[in-house]
């Protein structure tokens, strides 16, 4: 009896503290290599990171303050995963992979781009199971306006079975080359144009002769006349028995949330890159399959792990570990995150317009970079910070490395000066008492309270200024300085 009681006490004390099973696998992997893990991040940094990673937005001052008053992480993660922000984030990520773009080289054109994006948004809002999502893309037929998934087959000049099978292998298995024998599955796919501008109908060529047999997973498959030859591929690919399918997406989602794949690059699964830890990836794969391919549930488990909430600061012994297991990776804000954050802070939106077809279509003011959803529509700053051009379906086409032009833009660009000068927020805050204003700006830009030292350092700096620069321009300088700080530029 005593022993049982002791067991219960031990269980109650230790197990819940060491969070979930995922962390046990991660901790075991670290322990095996003798790498210590960094402590948990402070709540202010965590709330900012969670917002950015899940929704591509920095939190508002109110959202940060609410979390700091009541740091309920589960509620935070659940509300963000249920928010439109997470839908937008997924539409953006899949838009990159599906190369959704009006003009060259995808040439999907605006109507199809909009229809496809709407379809993706609906699917993610309903948390469509991932296997059903992929089947829907692969098995679509009909008008590219009415059955938007057919646009999966319309990205680019090359509409050959070889290209389709390469795309399917890359997107859904993370393989750089299609397996031998896949091409015949796509041999029936053909397009008919209609009288509507840029409408195309994907249909299955009934005259397609039976090709040499297709090969699937080492087995020969007979493709029967009168059937959709893509069917056997789609069924096998998305089945629970095909672990590689679940594994590829689990790894990709981990990379989206943690900054680096367990196998990296996350879309090169058979390129001979050793996983950081195979057991962790196996565990995520099992969980994903068991959940019935529930993307939100998989994201939730990763986001609630201790690994996700660790500090980005290294401790002695884990400095060299850049896998994200021992401390969270410090990556630059993505192009969309950065451009949108500056718009949110200044309340001056970037303006987007589509040039095809003429006359140009202007997006409503306030449209966010991650809502544009068309690789053709951009701004110079969005391009500058390495937004993917959607020419290829590789994750590496998002270029997050810093360069001199980007820093120059932040330090002294007319765009940022303009936003600060015209900002309604600056106008409003300039009327407030200095200390209040400084505190407000810190919360708004860095999502954390200002320290007393920071407030007095800024006050002191203002005293040394030419009187002409002390007022509102002084406060603009504070926003400018914080936007240029590493705390802002990197996801902490």
């Amino acid at each position: 009896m005593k022993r049982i009681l002791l067991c219960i006490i031990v269980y109650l004390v230790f197990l819940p503290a060491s969070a979930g099973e995922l962390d046990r696998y991660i901790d075991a992997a670290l322990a095996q290599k003798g790498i210590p893990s960094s402590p948990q991040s402070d709540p202010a940094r965590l709330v900012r990171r969670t917002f950015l990673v899940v929704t591509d937005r920095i939190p508002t001052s109110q959202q940060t303050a609410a979390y700091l008053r009541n740091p309920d992480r589960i509620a935070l993660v659940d509300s963000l995963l249920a928010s439109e922000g997470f839908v937008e984030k997924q539409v953006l990520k899949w838009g990159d992979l599906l190369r959704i773009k009006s003009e060259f080289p995808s040439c999907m054109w605006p109507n199809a781009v909009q229809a496809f994006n709407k379809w993706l948004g609906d699917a993610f809002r309903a948390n469509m199971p991932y296997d059903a999502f992929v089947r829907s893309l692969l098995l679509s037929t009909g008008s590219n306006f009415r059955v938007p998934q057919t646009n999966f087959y319309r990205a680019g000049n090359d509409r050959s079975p070889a290209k389709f099978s390469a795309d399917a292998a890359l997107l859904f298995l993370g393989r750089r080359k299609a397996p031998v024998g896949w091409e015949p599955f796509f041999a029936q796919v053909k397009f008919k144009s209609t009288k509507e501008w840029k409408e195309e109908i994907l249909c299955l060529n009934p005259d397609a002769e039976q090709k040499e047999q297709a090969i699937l997973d080492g087995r020969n498959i007979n493709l029967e006349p009168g059937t959709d030859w893509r069917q056997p591929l789609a069924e096998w690919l998305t089945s629970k028995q095909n672990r590689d399918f679940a594994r590829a997406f689990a790894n990709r989602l981990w990379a989206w949330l943690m900054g680096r794949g367990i196998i990296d690059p996350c879309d090169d699964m058979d390129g001979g890159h050793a996983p950081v830890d195979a057991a962790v990836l196996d565990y995520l794969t099992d969980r994903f399959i068991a959940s019935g391919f529930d993307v939100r549930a998989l994201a939730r488990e990763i986001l609630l792990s201790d690994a996700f909430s660790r500090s980005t600061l290294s401790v002695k012994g884990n400095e060299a570990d850049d896998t994200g297991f021992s401390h969270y990776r410090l990556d630059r804000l993505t192009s969309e995150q950065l451009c949108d954050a500056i718009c949110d802070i200044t309340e001056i939106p970037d303006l987007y317009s589509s040039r095809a077809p003429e006359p140009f279509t202007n997006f409503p003011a306030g449209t966010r970079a991650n809502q544009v959803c068309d690789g053709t529509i951009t701004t110079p700053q969005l391009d500058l910070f390495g937004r993917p051009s959607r020419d290829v379906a590789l994750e590496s086409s998002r270029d997050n490395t810093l360069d001199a032009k980007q820093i120059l833009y932040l330090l002294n660009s007319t765009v940022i000066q303009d936003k600060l000068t015209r900002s309604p927020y600056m106008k409003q805050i300039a009327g407030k008492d200095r200390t209040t204003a400084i505190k407000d700006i810190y919360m708004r830009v860095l999502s954390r309270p200002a320290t007393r030292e920071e407030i007095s350092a800024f006050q002191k700096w203002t005293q040394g200024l030419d009187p002409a620069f002390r007022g509102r321009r002084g406060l603009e300088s504070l926003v400018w300085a914080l936007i240029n700080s590493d705390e802002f530029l990197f996801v902490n």
Partner: protein
Amino acid sequence: MKRAIFVVFALLALGAGAAFGQARSLVYIYLDGGSSQTDTFDPKPEAGANYTGKYKTPIQTNVPGIMIGERLKHLAKIADRYTILRGMCDGTNAHETGHYRMLTGDMTGKDIVYPSYGAMISYKKADSYNNPIFPYICITEASTRFNEAGFLKAWYKPYDTGGKPDAAQFDVSGIYDHRMDDRLLQARRELLGTLTKLGKPVEQTPEVQKAARLREQNYELILGGVREAFDLTTESDSVRNAYGRNNFGQSCLAARKLVERGVLVVMVRFRGWDTHKEHFKRMDQRLDELDAGVSSLILDLEKDGLLDSTIVVVGGEFGRTPLIAFGPPWNGGRGHYGAAFSYLVAGGGFEGGRVVGETDAKGEQVVSRKIYPADLWASVYTLMGIDPLGTVDHPVLGPIPMLPSYGKEGQSNGMLTEIMKVPQQ
């Protein structure tokens, strides 16, 4: 095999030790939207009013036998300095495809998106280019019709100046803003330093360290001498007037100043050539601006001794329909036309006073010496010391041909060896 023979032939024609590597810089004046060949460098007065519209009387240039459009009066006086390419064709009437083909030379129609000429030159010259100013600059804003870096790093995209060259102050994004007082700029730099020390600690990853280094470097750009390269107010009024007091003219002037500073590639993006409607009304203005800007640039480069080391290229993504669309809704406009159009090249080892290629009586088809985009770029690359048969590193495919259409039938017709100078021994 065909390609190999072709290449050997081209190299023989060029002669050993030809103008390879003579040019240091390139100025590409891009007539965005597509300029009419018949109204500019390939007039066809005999085609009749349905073709010529009101530009019925082309003018004689200073080179006997070469006639150009009647509004290009200044350019007519210096035809000995440039060559007109009348055989240009890129086989498309779509802006986005024409733009891509013209800027990359790639007509293979494959799924690989190539870097633009400017990205390619910067990439090839990355090791030898030591200049605080960016290697590839666009005045004032690059088109975003395709990703100019192609499969290379975003770094190779052009640097956009932004701003208005013809304004009282030419604000150059990041480098100069007339509203920003230098004292405040300095003070802000100190503020950033102070607050960084007081802020939360940030892991010193290589990227974070790079950010710190780049900030220091950039302050040299901002507060150092580089912004003088963009300062047009140091030029005399007579010089500025000669280029034309409009954004295009002053952009050409800025391009000259950047070339003086050794910048590799400057694109002047001259917008407004997509004249489906009100063609002639708009052309009156565009052509006058083009005439003043380009002629002044060429003469100035020559005066400064820079024309031999600077290539000037003028043209857009295609030409325009020689036959005027008189019916509604165009009411006298010209449509897109990729089958035949004209380019102008000067300097850097290109001979002047010549015409290459010829179109039919109406300017609709090339009847002799077709010139494809790949031929133009192969010639420019060669003059800049870059082997057009060289490769470029693709992140997945490894080294691939940098100019894949060059030497391919139907996508290439050979380098412009007929106008590439052999330098004096």
